[in-house]
């Protein structure tokens, strides 16, 4: 039996690893389609002639396509993602520096969305077809339809401008430093509230709907009737039996969501000037810094692929029907 899982995991990782070079090659080709001189694209419009020529040399831009690809892949392999001419530093460094902040934002937002999504979904399922259910379903539909840049700005309008409850932008107030860890952490948290709530509200609808449907299916299953017939207390039936089964699909969906909220992260970071990879993307766009953009794209894609693999593996462990195939 255990051999079965290990094989499956291995297979899954291999497929994922195959995706990674596919993505890289895809970006490579996409870049090649861009109009204009690729060397200029990579060096930046304000670069000197010598610099442009140097770039041409390093990346072999005069050579045939497949040779360029090999050079490119080779560089990526050694961690050389190119050089950002806006930041005057290696692309990889620039990106990695901002990853923790993005993870903080995205992670918090997702956790809030999942937690409240499940709670509201369960409540809606238990009170199916009552006013509570209708209110929850309607509200989630509305939040699902609002674009995040509108929602975030409404939050700002009310909570920052009108009532001055939260800070507008950034990650930490000027003057507060990590030297005082508690004060620093509190300050960061204070800054984290609005952006993470914005992210959470947009995603929540998916989780509420999913939990509700899943829970209703679960509650009307045969094994719930049987559990009741055995004289188990309703509370126990609810949590141990109905909920546990209902939550399984959420794992899979959460994995898929990770890929879908990237757009939301980019926009939220922009609106709140949160110094993460999303905001970096916008800065790179404005400067037309192709090496940086390319690096961001490759790294984000790889992260999403890895996240999906992990989700799949976790699901395999949690559902005995899959584990013991």
């Amino acid at each position, binding site marked *: 039996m255990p051999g079965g899982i290990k094989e499956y995991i291995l297979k899954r990782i291999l497929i994922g690893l195959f995706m990674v070079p596919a993505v890289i090659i895809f970006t490579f080709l996409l870049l090649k*389609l861009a109009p204009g001189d690729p060397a200029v694209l990579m060096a930046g419009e304000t670069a000197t002639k010598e610099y442009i020529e140097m770039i041409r040399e390093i990346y072999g831009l005069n050579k045939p396509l497949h040779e360029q690809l090999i050079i490119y892949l080779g560089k990526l392999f050694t961690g050389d993602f190119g050089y950002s001419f806006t930041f005057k530093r290696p692309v990889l460094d620039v990106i990695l520096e901002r990853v923790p902040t993005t993870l903080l934002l995205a992670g918090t937002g997702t956790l809030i969305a999942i937690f409240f999504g499940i709670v509201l979904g369960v409540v809606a399922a238990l009170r199916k077809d009552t006013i509570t259910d209708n209110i929850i379903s309607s509200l989630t*539909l*509305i939040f*699902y339809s609002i674009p995040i840049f509108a929602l975030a*700005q409404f939050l700002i309008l009310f909570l920052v401008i009108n009532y001055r409850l939260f800070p507008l932008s950034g990650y930490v107030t000027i003057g507060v430093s990590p030297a005082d860890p508690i004060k620093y952490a509190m300050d960061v948290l204070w800054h984290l509230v609005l952006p993470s709530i914005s992210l959470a509200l947009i995603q929540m609808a998916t989780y509420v709907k999913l939990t509700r449907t899943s829970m209703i299916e679960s509650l009307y299953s045969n094994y719930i009737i049987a559990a009741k017939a055995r004289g188990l207390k309703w509370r126990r039936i609810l949590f141990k039996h109905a909920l546990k089964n209902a939550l399984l699909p959420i794992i899979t969906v959460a994995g898929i969501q990770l890929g879908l909220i*990237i757009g939301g992260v*980019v926009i939220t970071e922009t609106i709140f000037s949160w110094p993460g990879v999303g905001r970096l993307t916008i800065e790179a766009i404005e400067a037309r810094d192709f090496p940086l953009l390319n690096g961001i794209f490759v790294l984000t*894609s790889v992260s999403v692929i890895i996240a*999906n693999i992990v989700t799949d593996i976790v699901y395999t462990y949690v559902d005995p029907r899959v584990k013991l195939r």
Partner: protein
Amino acid sequence: MFLFRRSRSLTISLILLSAIIFFGLVAGILTDKEPLRTGYAQGLTPPSSQFPMGTDQLGRDVFSWTLYGIRTALFVSLVSTSLTVIISIIVGLPAGYFGGKLDQLLMRVTDFFLSIPRFILIIFAVIIFGPTLTNIILILSVFSWPTIARIVRAEVLSIKEREYVQAAKVLGAGNFDIMFNEILPNVMPPVLVASALQMSDAILAEAGLSFLGLGDPNMASWGRILAIARQAIYVGGWWTLVFPSIFITVTVLSVNLLADGLNDIFNPKSVR
């Protein structure tokens, strides 16, 4: 109303959509001001009888912008979604029907597109090819078809084995005949539901691009005025945020309700 009993969502969405489309069509009649023209007023002005939704910092009329924005949103989403559906059918129908190498290829491609972050890819592509209306529509179509194609394929697989298809085969109908006359009509219902969702996605995607400055500068897009609102709300210009937000939310909402409603009609037994 019979329709109302069959599906609340569908009725509401159709009412809303008709209203929105109506306003979009008569935009030219309701206002004489051009949406993107600056200088109608000296900077930010609040709503008044002359400017029902106020103006932005450069004196552009928000009312006009919001109304013409309907056209942008609906045009981009409708065209790109239609293209997506066409491509999906062209690819998905044979893939599901004939199976084999074509099918394998399709599955790999859709897997690939599902694992990469779509929004960044779209941004990337828009930068590379330039932010024009045509490009945006094409890019949105190209990056959306894998999901729908997958649905088409799945439906084809299940319909392929049904009796009326077998019957047609026995009667000597050719493959293409079968695909288009028997299978396609039955594939459409779930595809339509997915397309409606795709449409609302497209509206949000286009708005997102415009918000980030990557939209076609000649189009009155809601995303763009919402980007302007970022500065405006600090100095009290709430109208630049509120009105376009209401319009885009209601539009996306009605398309989502349309999807729900279509689902109600095609799958009456599903858990609600």
